[in-house]
């Protein structure tokens, strides 16, 4: 028994290192300057440098693979996506943090640590790296969810999140132990060759191990039946963090599941089709029906995000290149739509009172009545997001769903595609319902209301809104990028 130290290629992991470095730097800035805006600036500068460095790796065909990390087209695609998600999260957080008395000095660096977790998760090439980066992501998110310390709902969301999250991590860890026991290795590439050489069926211990791992990962992406925590946590968390939870951390785990089932577990992936078929239908249906009945906008979006996981699973069970491309494409679209929608809600928050539940924030659907006349910018962008989430043509969401369901039909899952389309139709009702409410004519006695939200925040939202429409009309460059990323994944 001897340990060989893996060779580390510093050059290809620079984006991750930059994010880590600036997260630590931002904590130091917080200590020495005590200014939350300085910390914000540090984090944003760090993310910009990391983004530039990631883009330099874009399309360079030399994959680097050690026993711990893989840096290839697939990870580069997700690195860029996660850095953009983090930048948008920071941008929509700025005025929210100041209005709701969140401690920005700790909040912004934690967003960077969570981003680092996502980036490392997607590049993980062994179970240890995967577990550590998933925990880095989760633990940062536990703290971020509870960061509104003077508000009870935030604390309640944090305790519910950490209990369910840590419970899920326990399952994941035990699953990893069983997989390790069955294969004798924790490296993805060795596992793939060991499983490839199996004769006479898959050992039951490995089956149970993979099942337990899927329970743990299913919790993290809020897939039915492991979704119970999601609505509560999404409602209680600071709104920009809800956006990060429903986009970034979910996409990272989905990307990891894709890697798991196309590299190490590729031999057993076909056995999962039946189970995931049922879970996809359940996720879509339960998510949409529950969203239909919700009166709270954040909860409604939380259930709709459960439904969106169902849509992703529809493409996943095809286990085809086309399905994977659709998942990557939809993840990128969903990141923009989700963050923009929660960004609008965050931007409608008024300064001051937030000591009791929801005060100062527009949470109930009634609060959105005739919003189009008092808060035109946010209402317009939110409408674009809702249309896109519903999958109306000329928005990104339409192209995304077309690819997802197209992949399912292509692989012969016509029944599933029909269920998915029906679900989309159900979702139209609540998305458009909220939108119609925003543009209902104001009553004669409607109180006058000053526009809220900073200029910077509105500009960010405008950019996001334009991006959703631009991607809906001209998605070709993104589709090209997605194809490259999937090719890199299957080349490993």
């Amino acid at each position: 028994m001897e340990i060989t130290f893996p060779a580390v290629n510093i050059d290809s992991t620079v984006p991750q290192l930059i994010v880590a470095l600036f997260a630590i730097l931002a904590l130091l800035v917080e200590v020495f300057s005590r200014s939350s805006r300085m910390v914000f600036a540090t984090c944003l500068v760090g993310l910009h440098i990391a983004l530039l460095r990631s883009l330099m790796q874009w399309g360079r065909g030399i994959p680097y693979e050690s026993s711990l990390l893989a840096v290839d087209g697939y990870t580069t695609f997700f690195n860029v996506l996660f850095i953009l998600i983090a930048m948008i999260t920071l941008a929509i957080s700025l005025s929210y943090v100041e209005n709701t008395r969140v401690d920005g000095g700790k909040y912004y660096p934690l967003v960077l640590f969570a981003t680092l977790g996502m980036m490392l998760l997607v590049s993980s090439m062994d179970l240890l790296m995967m577990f550590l980066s998933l925990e880095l992501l989760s633990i940062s998110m536990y703290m971020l969810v509870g960061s509104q310390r003077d508000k009870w709902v935030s604390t309640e969301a944090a305790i519910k999140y950490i209990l369910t999250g840590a419970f899920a991590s326990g399952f994941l860890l035990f699953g990893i132990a069983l997989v390790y026991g069955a294969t004798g290795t924790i490296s993805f590439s060795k596992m793939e060759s060991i499983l490839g050489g199996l004769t006479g069926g898959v050992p039951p211990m490995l089956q149970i191990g993979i099942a337990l791992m899927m329970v743990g990962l299913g919790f993290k992406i809020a897939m039915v039946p492991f979704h119970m925590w999601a609505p509560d946590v999404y409602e209680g968390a600071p709104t920009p963090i809800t956006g990060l939870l429903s986009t970034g951390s979910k996409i990272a785990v989905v990307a990891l599941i894709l890697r798991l089932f196309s590299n190490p577990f590729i031999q057993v992936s076909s056995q999962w089709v039946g189970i995931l078929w049922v879970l996809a239908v359940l996720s879509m249906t339960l998510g949409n029906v529950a969203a239909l009945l919700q009166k709270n906008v954040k909860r409604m979006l939380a259930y709709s995000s459960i439904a969106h996981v169902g849509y992703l699973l529809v493409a996943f069970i095809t286990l085809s290149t086309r399905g994977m491309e659709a998942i990557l494409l939809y993840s990128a679209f969903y990141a923009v739509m989700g963050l923009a929608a929660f960004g609008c809600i965050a931007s409608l928050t008024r300064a001051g009172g937030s000591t009791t539940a929801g005060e100062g924030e527009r949470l109930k659907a009634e609060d959105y009545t005739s919003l189009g006349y008092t808060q035109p910018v946010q209402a317009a962008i939110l409408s674009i997001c809702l249309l896109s989430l519903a999958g109306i043509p000329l928005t990104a969401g339409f192209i995304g769903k077309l690819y997802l369901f197209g992949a399912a039909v292509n692989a012969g899952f016509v029944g599933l595609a029909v269920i998915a389309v029906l679900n989309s139709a159900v979702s139209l009702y609540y998305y458009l319902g909220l939108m119609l409410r925003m543009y209902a004519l104001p009553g004669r006695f409607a109180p006058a209301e000053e526009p809220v939200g900073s200029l910077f925040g509105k500009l960010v939202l405008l950019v996001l809104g334009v991006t959703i429409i631009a991607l809906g009309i001209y998605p070709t460059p993104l589709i090209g990028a997605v194809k490259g990323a999937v090719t890199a994944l299957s080349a490993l």
Partner: protein
Amino acid sequence: MLAADQYLMVGVVLFGIGVIGFLTRRNVVVLLMCIELMINGAGLAFVSFCRQTGSLEGQVFVLFAMVIASVEIAVGLSIVLLVFRNRATLDVDEMEVLKW
């Protein structure tokens, strides 16, 4: 001398006690302890697999899992403290502002 299989069984039992405890108990601190039991059950499984397969990776994994468990508990307990300061209760059934 116990066989590696018996250590594995102890690990499974520990994990099972953790899961059952988590699902039946209502005190937040006890829930965190149950999670700790689950993680340590997994740790024991790792070490016994190490014995069986003769590789070192499992033992390294246990060290990291212990660190992660302690970080989780540190964050968990600080949130529990925040809960207790707000509500003076540790019963999860009384945390029901966020509900359907």
